[in-house]
């Protein structure tokens, strides 16, 4: 059984370190990176101790909604968490050297540490609210990290783009989680956000979702969230832009961890949401992304951009794997998560080394680097060929599993389903092309003159070398990795029994043929990579509608101009405009809320005594009279009739204190009006019909809102008093010594409230004093400088 303290420590440790990192940076300087590596190593070590103690631990947080700090340790979460902390160690070591001499390192390490904590949180949390919290935290941290170079406009643009896309997806996730929790109310017999319980009762959950017609919405919301996070088509465009971040960030966030959160979560809810709709949506989405990503990677010339598109493509492979409802699908997704991290993270780190040492990231200028960077070339060889899926490297095994999944699904369903294996094979052809293209920068002849290429320091080479070595180990003995962790991860994401056996194929089968076609096709197509890239580039440069990034720019700029226009419209500096919008919007929201939750009005309750009816009729007549009054004084006086009628209504409803208050306040207001009216002109200005109609509409809306609210929320006249009311009535005399319950509540039971209200009144008085003082002063200075006052809300130069 997992230990709550240990699990909490694993997640909390990076956050604590993040908070302390400005201090650490002051003490350690650039060696903070090594401290970060220590923290990551500590989390990794603690995780490793949990390997044999699967289970769920929980501490209560919001008991009324059954929200808790609930963490589940299982194979799938552990695999992801180990990857995040393990690669974290290497990335921190690499950063310490790579970020040498840069500014803002304290912020950089703080964000990186907090990011690692969030990823560990997502991996281990099994309460949906907690998952959402950590999920959004990863987006926030990545925003800070992508925008690391705050002076660079492109950096800011890309950070914002990543933020808009991933946080927008996060909102979909929130909606999806709420739908799931609503369904859990029917399926599990109570409000809960407990994901483990939902997955354990997946059939009941699916039935409840189907019954309420929420299955497809929940599925779509979760998939959109995962697609935004994992850069699936058509939301893939933010990932290459995010490459403006420092290279260690790209390696960590954009290949090994954050972008995999979506894939991870799909794997997590796969047993819960598996259905024909799931297969259609997720598998299609994954294969489409796999193809589009591979095509765009072939067309890129920047090495980081190539890796970014390739990452999108491989994420598509994992998503597609999880999309298929056969055993091989889940195995492909799970195994490829590990393999991809092992070959893509070193490739990013290599890209960083090349950019650092050669001074360029343009593939057209790079060639023959193996002479200067032999170790880096060796690392790249292992990783890039693994990315291409060349046997016997590790990428081959998981891709083979996907081929088997597509073949099996197509074989069973037939017809259009044969598109699945076809598309997977075609995408793999391009995968081989861009992998060889990436590798090509180390071989052949130098294509452009480069400055002296230094030998990279050990701290830069060791992390990718370690990762490549790990990839090599998995390549040579895949069953070792499977036994260690992957098998248990497969079980956590599988539907039913699954037993993963990885190894080189021993006999000829359709998937083997697909692999052969992909590899041979890719090698054959490589010489034409240039022409392919031109063709793809022409497609990318097509008019806006096919370019998602064009859509993004359009949406953002339209939102900006619209809000710039909308702002002055809603708050133009005139108090009456503010009141109109606030009153109308508030009333509409309240009414919509009632309409959504309460349905029809209960008119049957409108039993009104004759006296009350008479008083209220007079009040209504007074209200009408106010609108037709010929002068200010008359309208104030008729308004007072309305107020006094309300006081009488309170007396009739046996609320003498309220009536007294209403009477004295009404009197005071009347007097104040009279005091002020002496100074006002005695005529009404001409009213514009349009403004009149608007005011009447707002007034009716507010009135309707108040009426409906009272009707629906007030207790019935014959209802029993609430427990609070009973308490006050019973305790007034013995507890406060007074028989006036209202007053006893004000001065005895809830004196603190009264104190607060007195402070409000005091602040109001002081505010008015100050405002009047300021106004006279302002007028004096304005008069002196002979400049008009700056209009409220306007742009001051």
């Amino acid at each position, binding site marked *: 059984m997992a230990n709550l303290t240990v699990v909490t420590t694993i997640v909390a440790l990076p956050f604590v370190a993040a908070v302390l990192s400005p201090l650490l940076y002051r003490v350690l300087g650039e060696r903070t990176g090594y401290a970060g590596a220590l923290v990551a190593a500590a989390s990794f070590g603690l995780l490793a101790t949990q390997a044999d103690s699967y289970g769920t631990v929980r501490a209560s947080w919001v008991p009324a909604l059954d929200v808790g700090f609930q963490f589940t340790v299982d194979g799938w979460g552990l695999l992801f968490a180990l990857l995040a902390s393990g690669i974290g160690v290497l990335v921190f070591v690499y950063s310490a050297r790579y970020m040498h001499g840069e500014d803002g390192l304290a912020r950089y390490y703080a964000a990186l540490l907090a990011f690692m904590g969030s990823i560990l949180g997502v991996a281990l949390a099994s309460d949906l609210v907690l998952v959402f919290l950590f999920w959004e935290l990863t987006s926030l941290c990545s925003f800070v990290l992508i925008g690391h170079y705050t002076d660079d406009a492109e950096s800011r643009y890309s950070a914002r783009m990543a933020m808009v896309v991933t946080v927008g997806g996060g909102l979909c996730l929130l909606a999806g989680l709420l739908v799931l929790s609503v369904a859990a109310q029917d399926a599990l017999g109570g409000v809960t956000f407990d994901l483990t319980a939902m997955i354990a009762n997946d059939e009941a959950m699916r039935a409840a979702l189907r019954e309420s017609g929420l299955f497809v919405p929940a599925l779509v919301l979760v998939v959109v969230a995962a697609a935004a996070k994992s850069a699936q088509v058509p939301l893939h465009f933010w990932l290459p832009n995010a490459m403006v971040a420092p290279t260690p960030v790209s390696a960590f966030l954009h290949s090994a961890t954050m972008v995999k959160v979506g894939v991870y979560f799909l794997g997590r809810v796969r047993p819960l949401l598996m259905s024909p709709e799931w297969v259609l949506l997720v598998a299609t989405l994954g294969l489409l992304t796999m193809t589009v990503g591979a095509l765009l990677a072939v067309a890129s010339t920047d090495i980081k951009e190539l890796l970014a598109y390739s990452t999108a493509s491989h994420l598509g492979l994992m998503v597609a794997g999880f999309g298929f409802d056969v055993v091989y699908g889940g195995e492909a997704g799970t195994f490829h998560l590990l393999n991809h991290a092992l070959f893509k993270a070193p490739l990013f780190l290599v890209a960083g080394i090349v950019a650092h040492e050669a001074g360029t990231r343009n593939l057209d200028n790079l060639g023959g680097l193996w002479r200067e960077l032999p170790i880096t070339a060796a690392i790249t060889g292992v990783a890039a060929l693994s990315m291409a899926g060349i046997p016997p490297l590790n990428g081959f095994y998981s891709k083979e599993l996907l081929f088997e999944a597509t073949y099996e699904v197509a074989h069973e369903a037939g017809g259009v389903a044969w598109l699945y294996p076809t598309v997977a094979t075609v995408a793999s052809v391009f995968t081989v092309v861009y992998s060889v293209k990436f590798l090509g920068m180390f071989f052949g002849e130098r294509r452009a003159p480069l400055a002296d290429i230094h030998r990279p320091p050990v701290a830069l080479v060791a992390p990718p070398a370690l990762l490549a070595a790990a990839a090599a180990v998995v390549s040579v003995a895949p069953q070792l990795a499977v036994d260690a962790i992957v098998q248990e991860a497969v079980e956590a994401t599988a539907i039913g029994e699954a037993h993963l056996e990885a190894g080189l194929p021993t006999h000829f089968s359709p998937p083997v043929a697909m692999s052969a076609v992909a590899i041979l096709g890719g090698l054959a197509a490589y010489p034409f990579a240039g022409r392919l890239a031109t063709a793809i580039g022409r497609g990318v440069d097509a008019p806006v509608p096919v370019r998602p990034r064009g859509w993004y720019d359009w949406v953002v700029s339209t939102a900006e101009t619209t809000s710039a226009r909308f702002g002055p419209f809603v708050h133009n500096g005139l108090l009456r405009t503010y009141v109109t919008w606030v009153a109308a919007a508030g009333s509409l929201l309240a009414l919509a809320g009632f309409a959504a939750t309460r349905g029809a009005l209960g008119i049957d309750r409108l039993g009104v005594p004759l006296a009350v009816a008479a008083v209220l009729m007079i009040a209504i007549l007074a209200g009408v009279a106010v609108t037709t009054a010929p002068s200010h004084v008359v309208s104030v006086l008729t308004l007072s009739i309305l107020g006094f009628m309300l006081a009488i209504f309170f007396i009739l409803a046996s609320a003498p204190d309220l009536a007294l208050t209403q009477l004295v306040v009404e009197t005071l207001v009347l007097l104040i009006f009279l*005091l002020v009216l002496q100074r006002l002109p005695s005529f009404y200005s001409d009213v514009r019909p349009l403004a009149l109609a608007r005011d009447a509409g707002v007034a009716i809306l507010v009135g309707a809102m108040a009426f409906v609210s009272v009707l629906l929320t007030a207790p019935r006249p014959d209802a029993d008093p609430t427990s609070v009311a009973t308490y006050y009535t019973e305790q007034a005399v013995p507890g406060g010594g007074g028989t*006036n319950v209202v007053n006893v509540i004000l*001065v005895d039971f809830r004196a603190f409230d009264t104190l607060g209200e*007195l402070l409000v*009144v005091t602040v109001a008085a002081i505010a008015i004093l100050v405002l009047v003082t300021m106004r006279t002063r302002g007028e004096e200075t304005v008069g002196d400088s002979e400049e008009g006052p700056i209009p409220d809300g306007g742009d001051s130069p």
Partner: protein
Amino acid sequence: MTTTIMRTTVRVTVPIVLVLSIWLFLQGHNLPGGGFIGGVLTTAAFVLIYVAYDLDYLESGVLDREVNPGTSIFEHRTVAAYRRTLLLGLAVVIGSGVAGMLVGDPFLTQTYVHVGGVPIYHDVELASALVFDLGVYLVVVGSLLTIISVVSAE
């Protein structure tokens, strides 16, 4: 509004209103009334004077003091008195809350005692809440009159 009818009416009604407001304030703990209602009613009485006469009348006519016409509303002695009332009220409220803490009760704890053998009334209940309510009364009177006098002077 400074008609003779208005002024005569105000002369008669203001004392009655003031007495009524104090009565409402004192009986608040057991019958309808209390610090807030009493405070608002007192304010109403003062505003009546303002409507019928003006801000300076309290100084010159009631207190028979010299009024310096040059001073702005903030240095006006009446307004300063209102501000002092406001602060005094806050002090009374907080003081009555803290008083309980001196004998070990939580902040704002109130208590009451019955005193027997008083002439005419026989049995009188003395509640510490009345002190709190007095603070409420003072704050309401002070703040409302500050606001009204400052705004009306504008």
